[in-house]
């Protein structure tokens, strides 16, 4: 009885009693949701265009952030370092296309998936070899990102909003909008959408598959860089981030592997759900449920809607 | 008594019947109030132009699709819709238009899978390869070898099915369905994509199966040619509705059928 009470009644009473805390939790959830969404976005871009489940997206975030900070540490001015990092991500995209995608074309999904594992190892090793394994501090100041926070009094208490979080949200929105434009307005974008439907259709647009792969991996790299900067500004730049990047997986399940809006909405739902779960229900079991709560949300969701939020119903044929 | 008479005599009472079956997919009508029956031991063909709803009909028969209206009667029992493994348990076997073999396995293993419903071995017996498991395995291997011999595929017994040419894959699929010892066998375009010689072989096998095992056969074809020679009765579907039903000769001379095949506008 007590258990049921503490699961189904108590948390909601708490929410009612302290609405400011509820808003704060929601906000925190949304912010981490934005970051999940960004990582998921990287996944979706690549999966949509090349059918590769890119496990290395998480480490790409770390690698991009490390490169940025590392370059800066070696005396490269922040904005130059930023530009250089973008170039590095381009080089990476080309390398991936040449060394992995091209030789493995037409292999089963799982093989490509495993290859991105290999890529993960390579990036971890390279990152540590070049920049060392210690956590680093993001150069948010140098990049002109705001720090500090707004304190808004409301609902009988107050809610604290970090400026960097607001910036993150804005940048993320801009990025999504930008991608949207690229997708819908440019020739490359049309090819990208075509390739998601059928490889041959893409070829008929006159763009080679190889080019498309480079473009999406590069786009995913840039998204990873942005994610890395945001994330790094909030905590540190370290390899621990790689595991957190796995949080993007439940997001994908929620949103579907090929839907960009799905990635955004899914990210926000997971972010909010996870924070709420941790804050209101976590104490019941000793806390720390953040590590798996997102998966459980996704799993429950999956059982009722296997095709995801925005996916179409699958009719199986024989 | 001639051979034809002997063949005609074996046909018995209806075993399978569909009554006013309708099936829609998200508003698209695949089947409209189709009714027909299948008699014991007969070779029953369902023909019709492409997209006439033949495959949907077969999928309804063995429970892969659930019809919105109508009932299926099988050996005196009524079903609103079948469940695939229930259909399998009751003795409805099936082959597929686009070969649905287990590509990573050998011919022998594919056919052995067909024996699954008849096998009882449990985890413990199999893990320790106890005499019970061994006996069962051998017993069913024997049954499978009969089928391999019957369909003349001895030489490819150990070949992974993925490496076989199309015609042989079709034959292996028939073998796998036969391994279930079905009383009714549904064949989905068994001769599609074959050359003349392969078609003749397949016809012979279908007739032999019908003859030797007494299996009732329901087969789909869009090509009228060969099927007419081997069927006892033919149903013709067009745009999801039945337009004719009768012996091959009756059907062949039916105006609606001729129109459907010549593509006269509706």
């Amino acid at each position, binding site marked *: 009885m007590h258990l049921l009470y503490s699961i189904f009644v108590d948390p909601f009473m708490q929410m009612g009693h302290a609405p400011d805390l509820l808003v704060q939790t929601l906000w925190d959830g949304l912010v981490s949701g934005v970051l999940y969404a960004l990582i998921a976005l990287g996944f979706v871009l690549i999966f949509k265009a090349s059918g590769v489940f890119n496990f290395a997206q998480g480490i790409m975030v770390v690698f991009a952030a490390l490169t940025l900070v590392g370059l800066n540490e070696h005396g490269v001015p922040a904005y130059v370092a930023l530009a250089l990092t973008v170039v590095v991500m381009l080089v990476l995209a080309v390398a991936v296309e040449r060394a992995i995608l091209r030789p493995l074309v037409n292999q089963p999904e799982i093989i490509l998936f495993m290859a991105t594992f290999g890529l993960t190892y390579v990036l971890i090793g390279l990152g540590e070899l070049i920049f060392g394994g210690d956590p680093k501090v993001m150069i948010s100041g140098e990049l002109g990102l705001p720090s500090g926070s707004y304190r808004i009094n409301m609902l009988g208490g107050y809610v604290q909003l970090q400026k960097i979080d607001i910036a993150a949200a804005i940048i993320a929105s801009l990025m999504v909008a930008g991608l949207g434009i690229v997708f819908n307005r440019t020739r490359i974008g049309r090819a990208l959408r075509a390739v998601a439907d059928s490889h041959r259709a893409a070829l008929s647009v006159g763009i080679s598959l190889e080019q498309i792969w480079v473009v999406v991996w590069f786009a995913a790299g840039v998204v990873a860089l942005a994610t890395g900067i945001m994330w790094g500004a909030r905590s540190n730049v370290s390899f621990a981030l790689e595991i957190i990047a796995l949080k993007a997986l439940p997001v994908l399940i929620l949103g579907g592997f090929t839907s960009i809006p799905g990635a955004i909405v899914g990210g926000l739902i997971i972010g909010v759900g996870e924070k709420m779960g941790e804050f209101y229900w976590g104490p019941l079991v000793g806390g720390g449920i953040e590590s798996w709560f997102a998966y459980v949300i996704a799993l429950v969701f999956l059982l009722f809607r296997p095709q995801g939020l925005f996916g179409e119903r699958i009719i199986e044929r024989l | 008594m001639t051979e034809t008479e002997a063949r005609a005599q074996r046909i018995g009472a209806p075993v399978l019947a569909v009554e006013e079956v309708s099936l829609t997919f998200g508003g698209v009508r695949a089947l409209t109030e189709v009714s027909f029956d299948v008699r014991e031991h007969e070779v029953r063909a369902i023909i019709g132009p492409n997209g006439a709803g033949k495959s949907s009909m077969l999928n309804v028969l063995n429970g892969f699709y659930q019809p919105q209206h109508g009932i299926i009667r099988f050996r005196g029992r009524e079903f609103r819709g079948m469940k695939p493994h229930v259909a399998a348990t009751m003795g409805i076997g099936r082959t597929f238009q686009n070969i649905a073999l287990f590509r990573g396995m050998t011919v022998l293993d594919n056919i052995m899978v067909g024996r699954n419903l008849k096998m009882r071995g449990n985890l413990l017996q199999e893990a320790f390869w106890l005499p019970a498991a061994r006996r069962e395995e051998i017993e069913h291997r024997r049954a499978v070898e009969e089928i391999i011999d*019957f369909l003349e595929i001895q030489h490819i017994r150990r070949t992974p099915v993925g490496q076989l040419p199309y015609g042989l894959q079709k034959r292996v699929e028939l073998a796998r369905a036969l391994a279930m010892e079905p009383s009714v066998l549904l064949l989905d375009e068994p001769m599609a994509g074959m050359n003349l010689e392969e078609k003749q072989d397949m016809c012979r096998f279908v007739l032999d199966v019908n003859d030797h095992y007494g299996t009732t056969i329901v087969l789909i074809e869009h090509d009228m040619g060969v099927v007419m020679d081997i069927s006892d009765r033919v149903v013709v579907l067009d745009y999801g509705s039945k337009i004719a039903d009768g012996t091959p000769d009756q059907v062949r001379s039916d105006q609606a059928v001729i129109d459907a095949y010549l593509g006269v506008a509706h």
Partner: protein
Amino acid sequence: MAADIGALDTFPKLLLHHAKVRGARPAIREKDRGIWQTWTWTQLADEVRVLACGFADQGLKRGDHMALVGDNRPRIYAAMCAAQCLGAVPVPLYQDAVAAEMAFPIQNAEIALAVVEDQEQVDKLLEILPQCPTLKHIYYDNPRGLRHYAQPQLASYDRLREIGSEAAKRDPGFLEREIEKGAGDDPAAMFFTSGTTATPKGVVLTHHALIDRARAAAEMEGLTDRDVVIAYLPPAWIGQNIFSYAQPFATGYCICCPESAETLMTDMREIGPSYYFAPPRVLEALLTQVSIRMEDAGRFKRALYRHFMDVARRVGGAILDRKPVGMAQRLHYALGDLLVYGPLRNVLGMSRVRVAYTAGEAIGPDLFRFYRSIGINLKQLYGSTETSVFVCVQPNGQVKADTVGPAVRGVELKFTPQRELLIRSPGLFREYYKNPQATEQAKDAEGWFHTGDAGYLDADGHLKIIDRVKDVGRLDDRTLFAPKYLENKLKFFPYIKEAVAFGHARDRVCAFINIDMEAVGNWAEKRKLAYTGYVDLASRKEVRDLITQCVEQVNADLAADPELAGSQIHRFLLLHKELDADDGELTRTRKVRRGYIAERYASLVEALYAGKESVHVEAQVRYEDGRTGQISADLSICDARSFPPAAAREAA
């Protein structure tokens, strides 16, 4: 002349003997339902008992004939023995013969009862039933597809067994009594010779003849009941009957029936026969397979293969014959045995072969040496249906490529002035059934059998056969011309499938050649030579050059032989179609019918001798699916270099 063969003078008696002394040993294995099903001698004897009682019940009597049509199956052999138990004469017929070809033997032997394998054979017999009123019972082994056949003559093998079982129960001693009545001089079987020109003749062989010859060869080779033979040639052919019926009954060894023609290679590899027979065409096809597959191998393996085959060619034969060979050479060969010959014998399924025979026609010496050089004890033998096969056999250690060995125990040989070989042997046939005239022609009053083969004994007493007496010709300058000898030499090249040589009463030798589609096709692919089909391929300049090289090679060889140097091939053409038994150009055993071909392609022959550059041809061809079509083509005629005879060269 009649050598004593003891008390076990009929096959049924031998069967009972084996059932008694080695009842649990395998008599016949059959790959069926995926495994080698074994019939022990006891089981075989039991089966024969049931069948014999069944046959007797169905009215089969002493002296009657019974037809057997089917592949090598234990039940066919059991039926054969069952008939012999009753003193009836089994007549095995070729299972691939068309219906019309079966009518004659059935009428000739007044056959009332037939045991056949399956629907295919039943259909054929039913087709000729109106011409064969004597045929009253047809028993089929495989009931597949026969369920609705309503003919009263038909019954299944299993039904026959039921009848037999009941009859055996009623009179358990029946079989033994019947077997006792049999004697060695009774006819044991009748084989119809594949008449290439005339009507077939039924060769009647007695138990005595067959058993005596089977034993003579078995003793010579030391065959025991541990030997294993794979039965894959038509049972209606005397050779197959000797190796898979007479000799196993004589020695008690086990025969193995493959599952189907497609699985023969695999099945043979599984069984690993110790005693093997193959006509030259089979050996040739195998070697072609070997060559083609080796061509596809990687550079390293090809080099390895070529190197060690060179070694084998030099010393392999000598080592097999236990002749002195240097230590270094021996080691070299042993290494080759590990790396190439052993594995090769293994993939060919011949690792365990102790004795292998080839016969039926002359074998190309290079082909012959190939098998010997890789350590397979392949030997030639000479014989025919009329002689119960074994006339001459090459003994171990005395194997030559161009002879067929000395006479086997009990055989006498002599020659007519025309070089025709005459034979007297305990294995001779009794008569041609209902054909006293032919019998008289073939077998004279003193019991000499006139073979029709031309040949002579060489210095070691080995028989050398050149050709059929009637085919041996002379060029118009009286030079000896043995067409088959030339053809065989050509056919040894993997690229040449068939050859027909002309030259009798002409000024020089010319030839038709069929390319081997598989080998030449492979060769062309390697050279990125596109072609559409046989006709196109055969008309390619590159292919003509390839074959010209082969012909010139043959000419060089011939030049070395003083007797035959004059019959070098001067001109040849590549035929526009493959010679085919269905068109009557080959016999069923794939021998070329030279006369018929010369007649049919007279214009081509003329063109060869008229010295033309090319000749236009129009012909009807039959495609694989049974359709026929018209083709027309210009065939180029090629000239081949010839060489001065070795003797002349030495003199010069």
